[in-house]
């Protein structure tokens, strides 16, 4: 119900929303939770395991019960905490984990079965028969378990990711955080103040309390206004700091106010210093049926009354073990709500309030059906019962130590507070202030906040005038530890995961006595809860059951994130194409225009083939393109190959060190094939090396290894040979390069370049500058097809025009463009290798290039390549295969066996790496590796492939069966 009075809501702005389809009204400033309480909704959820009806339990992100689904469709958000959802016009929220509804849930049968569903239930029940697990148990459990569901549609939500940097990050903007931020800001520090709530103030917005002679919330508002005017302060509301990481890095989730196109931002905040002022979380007491809707934390109830002017009932009983009970009763009476009992667990407590008071009482049971109707308590050895539809309880406060523990430190047990406090120095550069370090009075919070702010600016060497600490309430926190009131029924410790006192004692009995084992056996403190509500009480019960102290029992590990973070926020920008950006060549549009399907090569997109009218299968296009190149001329964009420009007096010596062969012996105007090894002696990459000048080389890498080779070259230079005077840069993007291949290629280029390209000046493996249409281009007479061929490179801005010109000329000569499929077929016909063959486990010896390893110089990989095991004749060696039986199929990845040998791994003799149908030879060719392969030319082997159930008898042949003498290439 809604109370009179102002609170911090705007009664002039009514907001209509629905919960489970029913219409309600709330106000601007409400959360979904306060609006539901205002509308008299009591049951908002069903519990995780037993499907018990549950009501709103807290007023913050620690809420274990009121998890709801927001919206429907692609943007549907499950497991939102009603306590942190800002109300907006038209909001549609739905209960979850219930069928058909949270009011009437058929799954509640689980509650009757609860004697069988205790701790370890899954482990004990679903053991046998083994075969049932995958087919029956797991699907059923997965169906029944869990809370809200995703829509299964692609999300349309938009998030961002960003970095922020500051001198001081203040986490939490209660009285302590505000003072820390102000103090640091006045000293000139660059401050970020992050607050999870929509407004600053923390508990000041929830309590009836004065700061500096005005209402606490008004003081906080004035502070907010003051900080907002300071240029060196960034105030970030709706921003939860979720994790503390190395070197002052923090993760933070900012949610924007509802109705914006952007949902929010996942921040990585880098701070020189941090102040943890995250406050504290009130803890429940375990007693029988303490989970009944209507039972609520006392601090939360005060927040609902004072900030939002709502109360979940009109007869309230209050149960506490500190002065929190009295404070709650005062606020209730001031709001005109009837209080049926104040039950104080402290026997020596006194009371001057006009309500029934029971010192030394302990609530032991709750009554009612779906909602609370009565409260029973033990007082002076008698059980008494009072009527109540709300029970406000407080078992004391737990400082929010979480972020102080994210780097592995454990908190320290404080006997006087009966709570864990953060360990000094737990996170480098982090200091603590306020309730997060166990300072529970407002005056202590303000003072410790100012002190922490001063300390961090001192650390940073900044000087500023001290800020005055305002006057405020200074109570003394007197608490009688109380975790569990014995009784017959189930007493909940962890509401979110449905873990009771019995479960924890059962875990102890079954010897899960370590706190980490107990957690996993019972699921206490798992998942988003991370022990926010239940941690200390569960530890206390375990400590009792095992006869240890709480300090000795210790805590479980606090892990990030402090509040749930949507994957969509952390991965913002990485959906779809954002996950793998596209790199296009300069001929991309022309290729698309010709209907070429694209194939991805790393991030590059390259044309597979260029279909012509009437071609219905890629093989038709591919075979035609191969014949076109071999008979006439073809054009292919090869710009994606890595290009690295190497210059300097020691350029040649540097390349000698990188490649197995002698690049220093290369003449200016010539190109040489080169092989690079890793230091362990295996092949890393191959490519060409063109000598453009005495001190100037251009080397190419394979498309896939371009980045790796660049890194490797930087390593070789900076780490291994810094003495060499050489510089290099990637120019892959700067040059567009096209292969012009086929018997007509010379004629075509002579026409384009208007110059003679006869063998005399332009023999095989020549290179040099040429000019076309006023542009200086580079021409390389190299061939990956085995034909008379050239590659011509122009600055990338001229690429598209040159491609169009080359293709037009080729088409006039019965030629045209060719794609990756034809390129691949031709290199397989020629037995040229790619990364299918140099896959990281092959040596120069394996691919038959041991002769390219110079013995006249040192090079990377030389020593290790000489190991006997890498030069062993028994190794699998590079060969080609052709089918000779009735089955003509070869499959890449298939393994090779001697004909008649049993197909077991001991008899495995090799494998196939590349396969293509050769239109020139008229049969399928396989490339692969076969033990002692070079000595077995002419022998038969059997290819076996289990996935397709295929077996093919093959003849071992030498690679490069098409034009083995290479006459066409040199022609």
């Amino acid at each position, binding site marked *: 119900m809604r109370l009179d009075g102002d609170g911090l809501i705007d009664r002039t702005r009514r907001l209509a929303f629905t919960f489970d389809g029913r219409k309600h009204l709330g106000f601007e400033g409400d959360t979904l939770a306060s609006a539901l309480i205002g509308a008299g909704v009591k049951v908002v959820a069903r519990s995780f395991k037993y499907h018990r009806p549950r009501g709103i339990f807290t007023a913050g992100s620690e809420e274990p019960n009121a998890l709801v689904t927001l919206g429907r469709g692609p943007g549907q958000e499950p497991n939102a905490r009603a306590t942190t959802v800002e109300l907006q016009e038209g909001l549609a929220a739905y209960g979850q984990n219930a069928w058909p509804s949270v009011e009437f849930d058929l799954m509640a049968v689980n509650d009757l079965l609860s004697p069988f569903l205790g701790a370890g239930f899954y482990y004990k029940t679903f053991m046998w028969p083994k075969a049932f697990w995958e087919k029956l148990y797991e699907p059923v459990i997965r169906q029944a378990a869990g809370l809200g569901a995703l829509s299964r549609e692609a999300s349309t939500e938009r998030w961002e990711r960003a*970095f922020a940097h500051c001198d001081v990050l203040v986490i939490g903007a209660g009285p302590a955080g505000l003072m820390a931020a102000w103090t640091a800001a006045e000293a000139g520090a660059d401050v970020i103040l992050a607050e999870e709530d929509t407004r600053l103030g923390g508990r000041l917005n929830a309590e009836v309390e004065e700061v500096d002679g005005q209402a606490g919330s008004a003081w906080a508002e004035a502070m907010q206004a003051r900080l907002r005017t300071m240029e060196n302060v960034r105030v970030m509301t709706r921003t939860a700091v979720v994790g503390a*990481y*190395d*070197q*002052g*890095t923090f993760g933070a989730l900012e949610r924007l106010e509802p109705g914006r196109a952007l949902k929010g931002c996942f921040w*990585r905040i*880098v701070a020189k210093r941090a102040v943890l002022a995250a406050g504290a979380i009130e803890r429940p007491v375990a007693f029988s049926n303490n989970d009944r809707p209507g039972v609520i934390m006392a601090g939360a109830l005060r927040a609902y009354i004072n900030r939002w002017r709502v109360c979940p009932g009109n007869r309230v009983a209050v149960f506490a073990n500190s002065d929190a009970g009295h404070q709650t009763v005062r606020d209730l009476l001031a709001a005109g709500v009837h209080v049926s009992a104040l039950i104080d667990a402290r026997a020596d407590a006194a009371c001057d309030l006009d309500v029934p008071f029971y010192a030394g009482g302990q609530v032991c049971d709750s009554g009612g059906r779906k909602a609370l109707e009565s409260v029973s308590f033990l007082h002076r050895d008698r059980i008494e019962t009072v009527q109540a539809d709300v029970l406000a309880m407080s078992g004391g406060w737990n400082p929010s130590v979480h972020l102080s523990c994210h*780097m592995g430190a454990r908190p320290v047990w404080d006997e006087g507070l009966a709570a864990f406090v953060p360990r000094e120095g737990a996170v*480098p550069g982090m200091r603590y202030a306020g309730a997060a370090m166990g300072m529970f009075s407002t005056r202590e919070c303000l003072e410790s906040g100012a002190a922490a702010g001063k300390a961090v600016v001192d650390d940073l060497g900044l000087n500023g005038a001290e800020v005055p600490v305002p006057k405020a309430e200074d109570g003394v926190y007197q608490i009688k530890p109380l975790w569990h009131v014995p009784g017959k029924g189930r007493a909940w410790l962890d509401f979110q995961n449905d873990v009771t006192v019995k479960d924890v004692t059962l875990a102890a009995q079954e010897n899960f006595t370590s706190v980490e084992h107990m957690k996993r056996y019972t699921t206490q403190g798992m998942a988003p809860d991370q022990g926010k509500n239940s941690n200390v009480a569960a530890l206390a019960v375990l400590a009792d059951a095992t006869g240890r102290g709480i300090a000795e029992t210790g805590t479980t590990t606090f892990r990030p994130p402090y509040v749930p973070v949507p994957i969509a926020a952390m991965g913002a920008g990485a959906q779809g194409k954002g996950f793998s950006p596209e790199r296009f060549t300069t001929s991309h549009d022309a290729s698309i225009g010709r209907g070429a399907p694209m194939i991805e090569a790393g991030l590059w997109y390259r044309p597979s083939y260029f279909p012509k009218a009437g071609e219905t299968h890629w093989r038709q296009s591919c075979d035609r393109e191969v014949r076109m190149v071999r008979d006439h001329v073809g054009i292919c964009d090869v710009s994606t190959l890595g290009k690295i420009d190497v210059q300097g007096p020691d350029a040649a010596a540097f390349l000698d060190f990188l490649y197995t062969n002698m690049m220093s012996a290369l003449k200016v105007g010539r190109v040489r094939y080169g092989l690079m090894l890793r*230091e*362990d002696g295996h092949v890393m990459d191959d490519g060409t090396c063109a000598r453009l000048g005495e001190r100037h080389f251009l080397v190419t890498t394979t498309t896939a290894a371009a*980045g790796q080779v660049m*890194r490797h070259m*930087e*390593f070789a230079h*900076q*780490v*291994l040979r*810094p*003495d060499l005077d050489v510089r290099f840069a990637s120019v892959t993007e700067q040059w567009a390069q096209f292969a012009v291949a086929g018997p007509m290629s010379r004629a075509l280029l002579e026409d384009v370049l208007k110059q003679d390209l006869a063998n005399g000046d332009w023999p095989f493996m020549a290179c040099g500058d040429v000019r076309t249409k006023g542009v200086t281009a580079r021409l390389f007479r190299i061939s990956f097809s085995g034909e008379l061929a050239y590659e011509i490179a122009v600055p990338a801005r001229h690429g598209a025009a040159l491609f169009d010109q080359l293709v037009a000329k080729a088409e006039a000569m019965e030629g045209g463009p060719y794609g990756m499929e034809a390129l691949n077929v031709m290199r397989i016909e020629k037995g040229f290798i790619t990364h299918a063959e140099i896959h990281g486990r092959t040596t120069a010896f394996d691919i038959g290039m041991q002769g390219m390893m110079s013995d006249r110089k*040192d090079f990377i990989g*030389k*020593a*290790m390549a000489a*190991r006997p095991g890498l030069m062993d004749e028994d190794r699998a060696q590079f060969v080609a295969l052709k089918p000779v039986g009735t089955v003509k199929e070869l499959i890449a990845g298939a393994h090779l066996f001697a004909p008649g040998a049993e197909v077991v791994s001991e008899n495995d003799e090799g494998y196939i790496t590349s396969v293509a149908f050769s239109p020139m030879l008229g049969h399928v060719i396989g490339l692969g590796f076969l033990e002692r392969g070079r000595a077995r030319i002419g022998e038969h082997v059997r290819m076996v492939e289990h996935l397709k159930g295929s077996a093919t008898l093959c003849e071992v042949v030498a690679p490069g069966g098409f034009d083995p003498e290479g006459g066409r290439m040199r022609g």
Partner: protein
Amino acid sequence: MRLPCPICGERDRREFYYAGHAVALERPQEGAGAEAWDYYVHNRDNPCGETRDLWFHESGCGAWIVVTRDTASHAVLGAVLAEEAAR
């Protein structure tokens, strides 16, 4: 995690490529024995405490750097250019 690039200043670790222990700086001379090469290429200590390793500022200036850090506390104690460390 933040690494202090001697050229660019302190940067997020996502800008760097990690390449293992800085033993890679000490490449054996040509003709060194099999044991020296085996140690250089394959053997790595797994210290609890201070260690030196190589990082490549791939999304930054392209410098290989030698970072001294503590594997237990995660403290980063300093960084120098590999080029200087190697000289």
